């Protein structure tokens, strides 16, 4: 029976850690004790087993993914006060960055961004409905829009709120622009507006709450948001079949229903999220991998605008908002996002230009315009007036 020191001597010899004296002692032990020889042989065999296992090459995209996720260096030396402010912001957002930097969490973050971005199409009421209010979805408007009961006066072209909007030069510039006209005449837009799913979303309480949310409005008005919306890469990504499939998966839905986006706000919660079965299912999903591997996805992830919006406090508030979560989990909302017409709209140049325009930003910040989204009738009145203004 070998004692502890003898075992250590043998192990060190196999590991090449013995001094010359130790090696001499080892050889002497081998001559005296057959158990020592047997142990040494076993350990050598074991070492040989490991030697048979070749080193694996890391995935070829790993280096790029790491470098793309690094913060971009400052392009110029900003004033001291700006540096101080940036430093403070970094402190606040550090934990968020930790949560979004890994590949898996980046996907969740990007999906959240995508959903916010997609939601703007619903919120702003684009494009005009070509139908009459009474025929939409076969449901009485008063039954669908609980917050504000619309009257004939509301939908009149003489409605003072609508008229006030059209006294604004920016609004007029927008609605008279070619891109706005193109968007309004887009067949896909019209199909979307006529869909039941669209109207169900518009009618939901959660939708109404989120559009009244200050943080949501801030996100909609932010430069970073607008830059993402205007980027070619984002539009390509949002239009891909894989992205649509991903959003339609049961696993993705479960994550949303479990408040996954809200949980993103702390790294500890992120770890809990990763332990969820749905998260693992998502990882095994082919669409997930397609999206991750797409150039468009990588470009969006690498963009300054994306990093800005992820670090945006208002954006984080939106992610944590219960009403927002309910909208995301809403079946009708998902149908809209999976709608072919909607995807075409998202991919169109006209839509991108409208979304990137200063005029739209001003329009969105107007209280009257926000009220449009609370009323389909009012929204239609606006669009009719817009069409008239184009003539």
């Amino acid at each position, binding site marked *: 029976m070998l004692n502890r020191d003898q075992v*250590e001597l043998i192990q060190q010899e196999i*590991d090449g*850690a013995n001094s010359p004296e130790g090696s001499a002692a080892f050889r002497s032990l081998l001559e005296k004790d057959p158990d020592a020889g047997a142990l040494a042989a076993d350990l050598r065999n074991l070492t040989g*087993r490991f030697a048979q296992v070749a080193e694996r090459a890391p995935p070829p995209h*790993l*280096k790029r993914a790491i*470098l793309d996720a*690094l913060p971009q260096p400052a392009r110029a030396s900003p004033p001291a006060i700006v540096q101080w402010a940036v430093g403070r912001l970094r402190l606040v957002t550090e934990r968020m960055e930790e949560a979004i*930097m890994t590949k898996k969490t980046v996907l969740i973050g990007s999906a959240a961004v995508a959903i916010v971005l997609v939601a703007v199409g619903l919120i702003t009421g684009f494009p005009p409905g070509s139908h009459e209010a009474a025929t939409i979805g076969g449901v009485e408007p008063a039954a669908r829009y609980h917050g504000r009961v619309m009257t004939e006066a509301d939908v009149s072209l003489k409605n003072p709120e609508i008229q006030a909007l059209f006294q604004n030069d920016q609004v007029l510039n927008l609605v008279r622009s070619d891109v706005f006209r193109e968007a309004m005449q887009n067949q896909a837009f019209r199909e979307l507006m006529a869909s039941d799913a669209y109207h169900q979303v518009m009618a939901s309480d959660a939708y109404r709450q989120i559009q009244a949310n200050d943080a949501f409005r801030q996100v909609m008005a932010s430069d970073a948001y607008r830059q993402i919306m205007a980027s070619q890469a984002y539009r390509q990504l949002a239009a891909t079949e894989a992205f649509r499939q991903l959003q339609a998966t049961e696993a993705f839905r479960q994550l949303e229903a479990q408040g996954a986006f809200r949980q993103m706000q702390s790294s500890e919660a992120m770890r809990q999220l990763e332990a969820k079965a749905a998260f*693992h299912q998502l990882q095994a999903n082919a669409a997930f991998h397609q999206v991750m591997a797409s150039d468009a996805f990588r470009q969006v992830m690498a963009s300054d605008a994306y990093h800005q919006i992820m670090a945006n406090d208002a954006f984080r508030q939106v992610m944590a908002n219960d009403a927002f979560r309910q909208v995301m989990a809403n079946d009708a909302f998902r149908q809209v996002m999976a709608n072919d017409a909607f995807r075409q709209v998202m991919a169109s140049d006209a839509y991108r230009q409208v979304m990137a325009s200063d005029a739209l930003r001003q329009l969105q910040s107007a209280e009257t315009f926000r009220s449009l989204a609370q009323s389909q009738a009012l929204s239609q009145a606006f669009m009719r007036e817009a069409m008239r203004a184009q003539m």
Partner: protein
Amino acid sequence: MKETPLAADEQDRALVERCLENDRDAAGALVDRYQQRLFNVALRMLNNVQDAEDVTQTVFLNAFRMLRTYDPRYRFFSWIYRMTVNESLNMLKRRKPTVTLEDDLDILAPGAAPDRAAEAEDRVGRALMGLTPDDRAVVVLKHFVSFSYKEIADVLEVPVRTVKSRLFTARERLRLALGEGVR
């Protein structure tokens, strides 16, 4: 020829200094130097390619973010290997308990070397997963990175005698698992 981390200390320090000056080429060079080794450490700790990739990415991003806190009196490789082992241990804790080893190996199989080499890798992988994570870390650093006892002790921040003890315990279990005989 395999470069030892010890011989590369000076180069590491130079690259770290350049990274601190926002030199992205230096960041790329550090990734080039360490990504394969860190990926393999994570892979052997987790037996799952996807998780190993995520751990490697997380480690680099954390390392770059915390580079200013790195004390150059200590060796860079110890610091970054420690982060890799710790992140792998965190990943193991986060894993769903019902995920089986077979599931992991199914994920591992694509891209693995074919036939006997793949079989050998699978067997070793399974045996490693039968160890406690602490014992596994010692074995991985010893057999897949070829660290000395002292280097392993530095990375894991434990005494050398603990490294030897864990290594022996782990080897006894591995010999049983791999059918190398019983002592």
